[in-house]
C-alpha cells in the first residue's frame, strides 16, 4: 500500500508495523507529530509525558517489562532525557527500545542547533539516520530488531526537513502478534549499582564490537559507485540535497547506520578518490571519522560547507563554487518582515501589556508561545534559557541582586505545560530557598506552541480520553506557596492588582493567569468554565476614536491604523472580542459589535 507520509508519520507507521506497544513523548518541534500520529493506532498505548526524561524512563520500563517501546523528542529534549538513556545503554533492553531525536539544523523553532549524533557516541548506543520517508518506515522496523538482537536502545536521528517533508511510502500491515520478551527478574543487570555497572561496562564494549561488524554489513550503509574520482559521504536528508546537485557525477557513500560507523567500508570507499565532499548539517561528525582514518588530505567538509544551517542544494552549489540558479530582480526593500506574533485573543496579551509598564524588574521567560512576549510592543522578557528555566533563573537572579544590595525585582514567566515539564522544580527551588520572586504561570489550558497537545492540567490524555486534572494552584499550595492568586488575564485591572500585590511582598508569590488558548478546541469543561470566551467581536467607534494609537500597544494583529481616516480599525475576521484593547483605549472608543 502506497501512502504520502511525512518522516514523522512514516516512523510511526514503521513502529506500528513492527509491533510497538508503548510510546511516550513530550511535544517539541519538529518531533511533535510522531506521538500525535501514534494515537491513531489503537493497538499502541500512546501518552504525553510531562517531560522527555519521564518519557524515556517510561519507555525503558516498558522495554524491561518485555514490550517494544519508543520515546520521541526534539533535540534539546534529549538533554533532559540523557540521564536515563546513558544508564540504559549499560543495562540493555528486554523488548526493543527506540529513542527518536529530532534535530533542528537552521533552528526553525529552536534555541540551538546541537548535533545529537554526538549523544550516540557518548552514550554508546547504536544510531540510525534515515534520509527519506520510506527509510523512516523501513529503518524504524529494523531498529527494533537491532535493539533486541544487540541488546541496546537505538537512537533514531531525524532532522526538521525529514520530520516535516512528505514522500511516498510503501507500507504493510502490523505484525500479527506484537513481539514481546518474557519478563524475568534480573537485578544484576537492571539495578545499576557500581558493582553491576562495572560488569556491564565490559559487556557494553562487546556489544559495540558486534554492532561495528553489523555496521559494515548492513545495507543501510551503501555505496553508489558511478566510477568517478570524486566522492560524497553523506547521511540523512543531506543525501537528497547532494543528489540534486551532483546527480550521478560522483560516487556516494550513503550512511544510514552511523554509530558505530562502518570504518572499513569508509576506508574502502575513499580508495582511489581524488576528492571527497562530506556534507553534514550541524557538526563534522562523519568528517572527523574520515580524518581519523587518515583521509584528511582529500576530505572537503566544514572547510568548504557552512558550519551552521541546512545544507540545501543552493547552499551546496554556493559552497563548491557553482553558479546559483538565476533569480528575478524585485523590490526587496518593500518587503516587510512578518515575525510570528501572539494571536488575536491570545490570553498572554493582557499579562504582557500590564507587566511591560513595570519599572525596575527583570523578567525571566521560558519556552512556549509566550516567548513571543520578548518582541515589540511588549519587550517583555530579559531572558529565555530552556524549557522550565524561568522560575529557577528568576530565583538565582533575585538572590544575586539581594547579595549585591540592589532592589531590582525578578519575575519568572512560564506556561502550564512548561510548569509540569520542569518548571515545577524551579518553583520548588524558589519556595524552598525563599526567593522573593514573582512566579507567573500562564495557564492557557493546553500546550500551545506545538499545536495543542494535552498535558497533565488539561483534563485529557493524548488520544483525547478524559484524564485526571492536576490542578496547578493545588500543586503550588502543596509545595508550600502561601501567596497564590489566580486571575483572568483579559481583565487588565485584575492583572494590575495582582502584580501590585505580588511585587509588594517580601516572599515568593505565584500568579496564575487562567484563560484558554484562543485556538484551542474547547472541551465541555472549558465551555462551562469559560462560557463567555471568544463569543463576541470588538469594534472601534470612529466618532470617539481620536487616533492616539494607544490600542496598538496591545500588539494585537487584529488591530490596524487607517492612515487616511487616522483612526484605529479592527479586522472582524480575526477579532474574538477579548476586550484587552477596549480597556486600554483612553476614550472608551472600542465597544462590542451589536449582535
Amino acid at each position, binding site marked *: 500500500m502506497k501512502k504520502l507520509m511525512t518522516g514523522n508519520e512514516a516512523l510511526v507507521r514503521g513502529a506500528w508495523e513492527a509491533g510497538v506497544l508503548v510510546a511516550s513523548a513530550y511535544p517539541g*518541534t519538529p518531533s511533535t507529530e510522531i506521538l500525535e500520529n501514534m494515537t491513531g493506532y489503537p493497538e499502541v498505548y500512546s501518552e504525553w509525558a510531562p517531560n522527555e526524561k519521564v518519557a524515556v524512563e517510561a519507555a525503558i520500563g516498558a522495554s524491561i517489562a518485555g514490550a517494544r517501546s519508543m520515546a520521541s523528542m526534539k533535540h534539546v529534549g534529549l538533554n533532559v532525557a540523557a540521564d536515563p538513556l546513558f544508564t540504559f545503554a549499560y543495562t540493555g533492553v528486554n523488548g526493543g527500545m527506540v529513542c527518536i531525536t529530532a534535530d533542528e539544523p537552521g533552528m526553525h523553532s529552536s534555541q540551538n542547533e546541537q548535533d545529537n549524533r554526538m549523544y550516540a557516541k557518548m552514550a554508546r548506543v547504536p544510531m540510525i539516520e534515515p534520509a527519506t520517508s520510506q527509510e523512516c518506515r523501513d529503518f524504524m522496523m529494523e531498529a527494533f530488531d537491532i535493539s533486541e538482537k544487540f541488546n541496546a536502545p537505538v537512537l533514531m536521528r531525524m532532522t526538521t526537513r525529514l520530520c516535516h517533508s512528505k*514522500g*511516498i511510502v510503501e507500507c504493510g500491515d502490523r505484525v500479527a502478534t506484537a513481539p514481546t520478551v518474557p519478563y524475568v527478574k534480573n537485578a544484576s543487570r537492571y539495578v545499576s549499582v557500581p558493582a553491576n555497572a562495572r560488569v556491564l561496562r565490559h559487556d557494553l564494549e562487546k556489544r559495540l564490537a558486534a554492532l561495528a561488524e553489523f555496521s559494515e554489513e548492513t545495507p543501510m550503509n551503501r555505496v553508489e559507485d558511478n566510477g568517478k574520482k570524486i566522492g560524497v559521504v553523506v547521511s540523512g536528508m543531506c543525501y537528497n540535497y547532494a543528489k540534486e546537485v551532483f546527480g550521478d557525477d560522483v560516487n556516494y557513500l550513503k550512511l544510514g547506520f552511523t554509530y558505530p560507523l562502518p570504518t572499513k567500508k569508509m576506508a574502502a570507499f575513499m580508495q582511489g578518490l581524488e576528492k571527497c565532499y562530506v556534507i553534514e548539517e550541524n557538526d563534522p561528525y562523519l568528517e572527523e571519522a574520515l580524518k581519523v582514518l587518515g583521509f584528511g588530505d582529500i576530505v572537503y567538509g566544514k572547510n568548504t560547507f557552512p558550519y551552521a544551517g541546512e545544507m540545501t542544494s543552493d547552499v551546496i552549489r554556493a559552497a563548491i563554487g557553482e553558479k546559483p*540558479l*538565476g533569480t*528575478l530582480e*524585485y523590490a526587496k526593500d518593500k518587503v516587510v*518582515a512578518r515575525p510570528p506574533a501572539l494571536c488575536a485573543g491570545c490570553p498572554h496579551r493582557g499579562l504582557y501589556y500590564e507587566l511591560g509598564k513595570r519599572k525596575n524588574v527583570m523578567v525571566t521567560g521560558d519556552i512556549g508561545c509566550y516567548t513571543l512576549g520578548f518582541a515589540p510592543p511588549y519587550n517583555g522578557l530579559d531572558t529565555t534559557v530552556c524549557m522550565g528555566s524561568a522560575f529557577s533563573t528568576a530565583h538565582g537572579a533575585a538572590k544575586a541582586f539581594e547579595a549585591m544590595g540592589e532592589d531590582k525585582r525578578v519575575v519568572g514567566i512560564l506556561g502550564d505545560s512548561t510548569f509540569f515539564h520542569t518548571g515545577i522544580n524551579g518553583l520548588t527551588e524558589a519556595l524552598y530557598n525563599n526567593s522573593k520572586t514573582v512566579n507567573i504561570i500562564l495557564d492557557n489550558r493546553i500546550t500551545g506552541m506545538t499545536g495543542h497537545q494535552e498535558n497533565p492540567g488539561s483534563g485529557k490524555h493524548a488520544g483525547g480520553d478524559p484524564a485526571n486534572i492536576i490542578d496547578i494552584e493545588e500543586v503550588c499550595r502543596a509545595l508550600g506557596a502561601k501567596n497564590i492568586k489566580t486571575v483572568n488575564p483579559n481583565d487588565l485591572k485584575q492583572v494590575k492588582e495582582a502584580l501590585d500585590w505580588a511585587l509588594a511582598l517580601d516572599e515568593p508569590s505565584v500568579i496564575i493567569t487562567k484563560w484558554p488558548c484562543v485556538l484551542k478546541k474547547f472541551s465541555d469543561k472549558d465551555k462551562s468554565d469559560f462560557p463567555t470566551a471568544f463569543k463576541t467581536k470588538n469594534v472601534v467607534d470612529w466618532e470617539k476614536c481620536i487616533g492616539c*494609537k494607544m490600542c496598538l500597544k496591545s500588539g494585537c494583529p487584529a488591530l490596524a491604523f487607517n492612515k487616511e481616516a487616522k483612526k484605529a480599525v479592527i479586522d472582524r475576521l480575526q477579532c474574538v472580542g477579548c476586550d484587552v484593547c477596549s480597556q486600554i483605549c483612553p476614550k472608551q472608543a472600542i465597544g462590542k459589535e451589536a449582535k
Partner: protein
Amino acid sequence: MTKSILLVGVGGQGTILASKLLTIGLMQEGYDVKMSEIHGMSQRGGSVSSQIRYGEKIYSPVIEPGSADLIVSFEKMEALRWLEYLKKDGKVVVNNHEMMPMPVIMGVADYADDILDEIKKACKDVTVVNATKEAEKLGNGKVMNIILLGSLVKAMGLDDIDWTKIISENVKPNFVEANLKAFEVGKTLV
C-alpha cells in the same frame, strides 16, 4: 521533468491543507512527490510556506531560489517576499488580500500600496485573484485556500486529476460541499 510549486502565506491561512490535497492528487497521478513544510513557531501569524516538487524521481523536498515554476501566494506581501524562489519564466498566482505584519501595526514599517505592481514589474506571468472575497461570497471565508488550490490546478494544467474525489475523501464530511464549490470557483479565476 521536475516541477516545483511554492504555496506561501501567513500562518493560519490554510496552506497546509491545500498542499496536502495537491500532493495526494499528484501521487495518484503517478508522479514521485515530495513536500516540505516548516511547522512550529512561525505558524503564529508568521510567514509560512509549503514546497511541493513532483516529477519522475524527486530527491530534495526543498525548492531552491530561482527554481519554482509557480508561486501561489495567499497574501500579497508574501508573494513579493518569496519571489526570489521563482524561475525567471515562472508564474505567480496571488490572492488580492493584505494582512498587516506586526511592524506595520506598530507603525515602524509601511505596507506599500503598489505591491501588486512590483510583482508584475518583476514577473511577466502574474494572475491576481480575489480568493478571499470569493470565499466570503460563498459564505465561508475559510475556503479561500481551496479556491486558490483550484486556481493552482488550472495554472499548472493539472485539471485531468480527479480532484472531486480527492477533496471528498480528504476534508471533513461537513465541509466537502463548500470546498468542492470553492475549488470550482478557483478554477474560473485563472
